[in-house]
């Protein structure tokens, strides 16, 4: 190891004093609800107004005080072998993370810190997303320097004095970027009705603020059917138009929600290849900047959607021990054609299964059993309905017939789906990789590296044992990979082959 340099001083450091201001401002948001409660609650009292203002001031004051104490007692140190963080006034906690164990470093800028030029630095260790190490907030320059230092320390490079702090712009190559037009197209495919859930939830929470009771259905019916029976007078044609309009509103709202969410999340999406690894930047209000070292990539997968697949749009995900904001894997290409994705896959050190000529498929017995297991309960239901039919009252006869037909239809669909899946589900193995493709309408392709697998398990349920097939589970760091319903002999051969690759290379010597 080199001697400590300016960027790697042995001194404890605090986050930027401005971060206290940022935290205080974001803390105000948490005060909004108590403040509202105070204002509304005091309305009934005599002279309540006199009391409200000082109480609000006290709340803000206390919040500020606690924020200040928290800031004062948080400190970190970039040491020789590890990064250390200590925080807390009453219960103090100290954490040390060795550089070798840091999976990736990401910077996040939420809107308020961004206004102040601040960022939050996160060190992912793979010990589960919740307990990650974070330093919030430091200036952007300090954040960059921290990341540089950690990267340099991790790879054991000699850091010349002053060089790390400079955060030199390294040669990088853009692998994938989304222009606004692509982003809008992407957003249109991200149809989402989550807005309804939010609006519905908000209405339920705050319905006391509304001048009328929205859950009073009789009032609504009266309003619609009303004194002049307004709607009924208009006749079925207008009612149909109304229904179509309602559906159209739903569709538009869903599209707009999807669009807004996508633009907020993926604005300015840029994936670059840097000497440190894959660097991803995205976000309109909250900017995130993540670097994923390529040698930490355990596996990749390509997903698509029911509709977007018709237009050739796919997404590429990276599986590693580090976790993304909300999902276990990092999306590195959210919306692109396969040709664009293929080049990123090559940079990540993997290949698409283009050269594979020999695909294996799940056992036909597995397909048959799955179809039976899916369809049989439904078929039994149909029989039960048919037998019980004479018992139903006359007016329920039509309903029971409809139910029986619907169940039979679903049963046939289940069986047909299994039949089709037998054409689509497949897997292949070559000297380096395992490819697993699953799904019919929105297929998913998993690409894993043989030597990076952690364990192999052959699992068989009671039916599988009788029928001679098994499911092969692979342990993947940060993800899952399974080949379902393959003949037992195939499973054993695959396991032996993969184990041979794994056992040859120790975990600590996995190739970069």
């Amino acid at each position, binding site marked *: 190891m080199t001697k400590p340099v300016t960027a790697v001083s042995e001194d404890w450091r605090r986050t930027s004093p401005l971060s206290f201001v940022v935290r205080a401002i974001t803390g105000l948001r948490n005060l909004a609800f108590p403040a509202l409660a105070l204002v509304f609650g005091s309305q009934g009292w005599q002279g309540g107004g006199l009391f409200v203002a000082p109480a609000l001031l006290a709340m803000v004051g206390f919040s500020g005080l606690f924020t200040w104490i928290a800031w004062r007692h948080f400190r970190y140190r970039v040491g020789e072998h590890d990064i250390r963080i200590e925080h807390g006034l009453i219960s103090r906690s100290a954490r040390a993370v060795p550089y070798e164990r840091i999976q990736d470093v990401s910077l996040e800028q939420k809107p308020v810190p961004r206004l102040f030029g601040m960022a939050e630095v996160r060190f992912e260790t793979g010990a589960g997303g919740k307990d990650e190490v974070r330093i919030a907030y430091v200036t952007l320059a300090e954040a960059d320097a921290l990341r540089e230092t950690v990267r340099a320390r991790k790879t054991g490079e000699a850091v010349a004095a002053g060089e790390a702090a400079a955060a030199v712009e390294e040669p990088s190559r853009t692998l994938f970027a989304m222009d606004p037009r692509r982003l809008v197209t992407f957003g249109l495919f991200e149809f989402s009705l989550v807005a309804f859930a939010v609006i519905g939830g908000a209405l339920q929470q705050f319905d006391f603020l509304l001048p009328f009771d929205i859950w009073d259905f009789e009032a609504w019916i009266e309003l619609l059917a009303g004194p002049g029976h307004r709607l009924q007078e208009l006749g079925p044609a207008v009612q149909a138009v109304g229904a179509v309009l309602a559906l159209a509103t739903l569709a538009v709202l869903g599209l707009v929600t999807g669009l807004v969410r996508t633009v907020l999340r993926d604005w300015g999406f840029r994936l670059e290849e840097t000497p440190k690894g894959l660097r991803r930047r995205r976000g309109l209000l909250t900017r995130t900047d993540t670097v994923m070292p390529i040698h930490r990539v355990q596996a990749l997968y390509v997903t698509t959607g029911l509709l977007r697949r018709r237009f050739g749009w796919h997404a590429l995900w990276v599986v590693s021990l580090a976790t993304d904001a909300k999902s276990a894997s990092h999306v590195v290409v959210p919306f692109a054609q396969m040709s664009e994705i293929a080049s990123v896959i090559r940079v990540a050190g993997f290949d698409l299964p283009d050269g594979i000529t020999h695909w294996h498929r799940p056992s036909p017995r597995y397909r048959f059993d799955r179809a039976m297991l899916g369809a049989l309960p439904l078929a039994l239901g149909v029989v039960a309905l048919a037998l019980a039919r004479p018992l139903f009252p006359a007016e329920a006869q039509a309903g029971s017939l409809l139910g029986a037909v619907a169940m039979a239809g679903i049963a046939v669909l289940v069986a047909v789906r299994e039949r089709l899946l037998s054409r689509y589900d497949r897997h292949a193995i070559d000297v380096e990789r395992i490819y697993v493709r699953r799904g019919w309408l929105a297929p998913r392709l998993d690409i894993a590296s043989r030597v990076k697998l*952690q364990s*192999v398990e*052959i*699992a*068989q*349920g*009671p039916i599988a044992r009788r029928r001679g097939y098994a499911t092969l589970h692979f342990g*993947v760091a*940060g993800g899952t990979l399974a080949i379902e319903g393959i003949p037992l002999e195939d499973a*054993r051969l695959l396991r032996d082959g993969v184990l041979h690759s794994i056992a040859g290379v120790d975990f600590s010597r996995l190739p970069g």
Partner: protein
Amino acid sequence: MDASDHEGDALTPLHPNYVKVVRLATLGWALPFVIGALVLESADTLPRGAFLAPVVLVALYLISRVPLRRYQARGYQLGGDRLRVVRGLLFRSDTVVPFGRVQHIDVQQGPLERAYGLATLVLHTAGTHNASVALPGLGHDDAVAMREEIRAHVKRETL
């Protein structure tokens, strides 16, 4: 069904005391049901024995037969560079963990296991699936010896 039906490789059986430990554990688990059946019996709502007889029969089967079969279904195989763990009566599972992928190793002992001189060896891997692979029913000394042997394979820098 028996321990040697896989590829002709003989699996090492577990310590015979494992059967006793599983029996005692099952007993502790079944006792509340038997007591519940006794309470229902004392309420005299149904003919005598309507609750107690089936519950006791099932409990006896679970205590006498199942642990033995479970023991027969389990086994392990310690290779030069990997550990294979086979288990399961209805749902069979056959897991192989290469030593090179072991992150850390535990030797655990519950109170029952301690009374019978047994231990559970747990191998932890970085994988999400099979993050920890447990091998119960080993003699404590065997478990410790296995831990030492596996640990010797795990390179120092990964610890």
